Structures are given as C-alpha cells and as structure tokens.
C-alpha cells in the first residue's frame, strides 16, 4: 500500500476559507443573531426596545451624577457619557461574550458541521444590532442637546466599521483561546470591568490633560487600546475635531490583531470542535 498523502489542515488557505464560508451562511447567522436578541426580550411588551431604554436610563442617571461630581455642565457630560457607554457596550460584550462564543455553542458545533466563524459572525451581528438600538438614544439626545455636527462627523461610520473589524478578530482570538483554557472567561470578565474604569467613559480625557496636577499621568491612558477606538467614534459623533493619532493606532491594531488571529486560526481552527 502506498504511503497516505499527508494533507495538513493547518493552512492559511483553510483559515481564510473558514471566514469566507462563514460569510456565505449569513442567512443562518443573521437569523440566529436576531433570535438571540428577540429571545432575551420575548414576551415583554416593549421587546428589544428595552435595550434602548436601559441605555437611556443609564446614560441620563450617570450623566447627571458625574456632571455634579466633576462640576461639568450637563450638556457636556451627558452626551460624552452616552456615546462612551454605547461604544463600550459593543467593546465590552465583544470581549466577554467572545470568551464564550464557542463554549456556549457547544451543541451546534458538535452536531452540525459549520465553519467556526459562523458563531463569530452571529455574535458580531448581535452586537451590531444592540449598537443600532442604542443609537436611537443618541438620536434622541441630539434633539435635547444638539451637537456641533459637521460633514466630518460621517467619519463615525468608518470608525465603527473599524471597530467591527477589530471586534471580529478579538472574538475569534479570545474565543479560540478560552475554549482551550477555561480559566480565561472569568479573567476576561474582570479585565473588562477594570478597563471600563481606565477608559475615559465617565471621566473626560481632555480635562485630565488640561489639569497640570495629573496631566503627565493622564498620558498613560494612551496605552489603553480601547481609548483609541472610543475616541475615533466619539469625536465625530460629538462634533469634536478628529485626532488622527487615534486613527493610526486603531489601524495598526487592526493589522497586528488580524495577523495574530490568522496565525491562531491556522493552527487551532480545527481543534475547536475537539475542545468544546
């Protein structure tokens, strides 16, 4: 008998192919993503609009609270907190849900052959829908506290696209690693909680930079990658001038993150179904 051909399943082509096949099944994950949301609010009268409402309540309450604590005018603090919260909701749940993305789909993975990226698309799509519901609050806020929006505010759209692109690799990467190492999900949860406070969501980054007492330490915040994602979206949405430094860092993270993830995908994609 001739020697069996040893075809390796660890190739970049297969990793990319997984992503491509996953995209083709968008009818499936599109449906599942919606269902995830509808499921959560099934049999409630307002349904998914509870997402919108709870975001509104949080933003208004914290806006008032921190405007008082920091002595900022409410019309500045509230929009700042609101946009920060909306973006953070996306980032935070990408990381925390990302750790569970394959673990929670164990049944599906073990019983139905599908590219593993399907589960990632589903999660990202769900988060985009959440984001959409939250943006309603932003739209309402614009009526109450008009922002100096310009054409440059449209930069929020590519900024969000970049965030989604990064969310995708992050979910994939964290998902694969935490399927293998089950201690990761609780770890990521604590990290996300911590990062919430280290990211300028309730506190205003500019104010710290202007304050001579803390300005040198405030620079450390630049090391926080989440800050740059947040600023690329928040600045245009609040009509602030765009700082390109944040965009460059985000682009660099995108490239590095995807490269790393593709390597991990190549090596461990086929192991996920064994690990779950």
């Amino acid at each position, binding site marked *: 008998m001739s020697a069996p051909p040893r*075809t390796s399943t660890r190739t970049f082509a297969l990793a990319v192919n997984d992503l491509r096949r996953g995209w083709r099944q968008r009818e*499936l994950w599109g449906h599942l993503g919606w*269902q995830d949301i509808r499921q959560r609010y099934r049999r409630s009268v307002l349904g998914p609009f509870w997402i919108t409402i709870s975001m509104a309540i949080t933003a208004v309450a914290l806006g008032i609270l921190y405007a008082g604590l920091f002595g900022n005018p409410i019309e500045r603090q509230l929009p700042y907190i609101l946009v920060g919260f909306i973006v953070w909701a996306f980032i935070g749940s990408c990381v925390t849900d990302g750790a569970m993305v394959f673990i929670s789909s164990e049944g*599906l993975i*073990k019983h139905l052959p599908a590219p593993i990226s399907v589960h990632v698309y589903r999660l990202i799509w769900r988060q985009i829908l959440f984001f959409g519901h939250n943006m309603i609050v932003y739209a309402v806020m614009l009526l109450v506290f008009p922002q100096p929006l310009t054409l440059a505010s449209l930069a929020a759209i590519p900024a969000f696209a970049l965030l989604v692109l990064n969310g995708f690799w992050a979910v994939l990467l964290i998902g694969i690693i935490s399927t293998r190492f089950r201690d990761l999900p609780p770890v990521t949860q604590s990290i996300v909680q911590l990062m919430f406070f280290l990211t300028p969501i309730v506190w205003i980054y500019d104010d710290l930079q202007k304050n001579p007492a803390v300005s040198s330490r405030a620079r450390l915040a630049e090391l926080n990658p989440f800050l740059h994602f947040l600023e690329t979206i928040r600045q245009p949405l609040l009509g602030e001038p765009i700082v390109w430094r944040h965009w460059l860092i985000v682009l660099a993270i995108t490239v590095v993150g995807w490269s790393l993830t593709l390597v991990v995908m190549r090596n461990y994609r*086929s192991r996920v179904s064994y690990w779950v």
Partner: protein
Amino acid sequence: MRQACVDFPIFDARARSLKKAMLGMVGGQIGSNAQKVVVVQALKNIDLDLQHGARVALIGHNGAGKSTLLRLLSGIYEPTAGSTVVTGRVAPVFDLAVGMDQEISGYENIIVRGLFLGMTRVQMEQRLDDIAEFTELGDYLTMPIRTYSTGMKVRLALGVVTSIDPEILLLDEGIGAVDAAFLRKARGRLTDLVGRSGLLVFASHSDELLRDLCDTGVWLERGQILQQGPLEEVLAAYKERYPAPPRRRPGGPPPGRGGLPPNRPGPAPNRPGPPLDGPGGQGVQPPERPDPPPGPGSPQPGPPEPTQPPDPGS
C-alpha cells in the same frame, strides 16, 4: 441524482478527544477535576473509501467510535493525523433536538433547522406545507415548541430532516423515539430520503432499521474497523461475537455529549482485523434471535478477540 460522486479515503485518520488531557494540563479550578492526562484515541487508522450509492451501516457497541466516525465524515472533526476528503453536501442527523428553539413556533423551527442543514430560507418555505402535513401537528405548528411533547418534537425534526435532499446523509441512532404508527410512516419517508441521497452512513443498534436502509456493514471496535463487507455478513459476525448484543435504550445519547466515547486508557490494538470482503454476502442469514429487552445489562467490553492479537495495553 446530481453528480454526487463521493470519493472518501481516510488514511490513517486518528481522532482524539483531548478534552480530558487538556483539563489535566490547565490546572486551576477546572483542572483539579481531571485525574490524569488521558488521551482517547476514538478512531485509529481508519481506511475507508465510500462511493456514490453506498448504503453503509455502522455497527459496534457503545463507545466503539461510530459517532466519532460520523463526525469525522461530516467535517465536524478534522482528523488529527491522516486525512479525509469528502465531496458533496453533507446532512448530518445526529441529535434531533440540537438547534431547536423552545420559544419560537413550530413553523419557525422548521425554517431554522433547514438553515442549519444547509438549505436556504426560500427552499424551506417551499417545503413547509409538505412538512406540516407529514408531522400531523396541525395548528400546533403556530405554537412555541416548548408546548410540545417529546414525541411531537421528534416528529417535527424528522419532518424537516426527511424533506431535504442531501448528497451525503449521516444518521446517528436515536431517531426511534416516536410512536409505532408514526415510525412506520417515518420509515417510508426515511427510505425515500435515503433513496434521494447519494450516500448514506447510518449508525444504529436496531438491526431492523439497518436492514431496511443499508446494504454494507462496517463493524467498528475500539476505534478501528474490524470488519467491512455485506451487511448480513458483518451483522452475523457481530452477533457471533456478542450473542446478546446490548441494545441501547431508546432516546439516544444525552445531548451535548453525544458520541464521545468513554475514556479508555491504553492503546487499542494497532492492526485492524482482516477485512472479510467475502463474495455473495446476501445469502448468509444470521440466526434469528429474540430481541432482549433493553435492560440495564451494559455491554461487556469485548471478550478476547479471536482474529486479533491480545490487547497489549490493558
């Protein structure tokens, strides 16, 4: 049929469940549960070439590797060594409950299950009436399926599964949990489905069903192919080895852990038994034997095998 030519060599395929091994290495909370680093070789050196038109029955007692082989065929597992090549659209039917959403209506579940099996929404909508008629669920289909009984859910799942046109159909046991009258009806549809599909691999402990649907048998034992040939021959040989083969309780494996074989430390024998590809398999009838009731008598792990050297590991 479509050109569902299936070329399927698995050379030296070795699927291992690393679950336990992994837990042992990680340490920490979860790891402390695992006793040792155990690597299970669920399948070892499987060579199989199935072509279009094959109707294959997988035979073997629990943990022999039937479900793992099916998962390997479906592409859920990729071999840890060796390779598999599968050409054609695969429809695996392992667990009827998976992918069912308790909160949405029967109709919606039909669509979703279809999507899972690789159909499009439009295709499923065309089949909706046919499936609805088959399931005999009537107005219940508009209700959330958490109101259904187990049997009703099985009907729904069977209705969907038997309505699709797969090129490669993989069936795992556990599709027998319906009442007899319905099963008779389902069997007709199942036979149709098998006729439409290009290739069938069916793992079951029900000789009756296997005889209905398959013509070739593959006997798996400890992750290796012990015998391969005409169904009756393989069944007869299997019965000879296990005079009262254990019958699995209806209901199938628990969801989630489906086909994971029990951990069996120690390597399985390296050489597979000589394949008995004898001619004229149809004539050999196995001795009729009364079906033992599905009792608690669990399968005796294989007695010493006459065709093989003694297990070196245990």
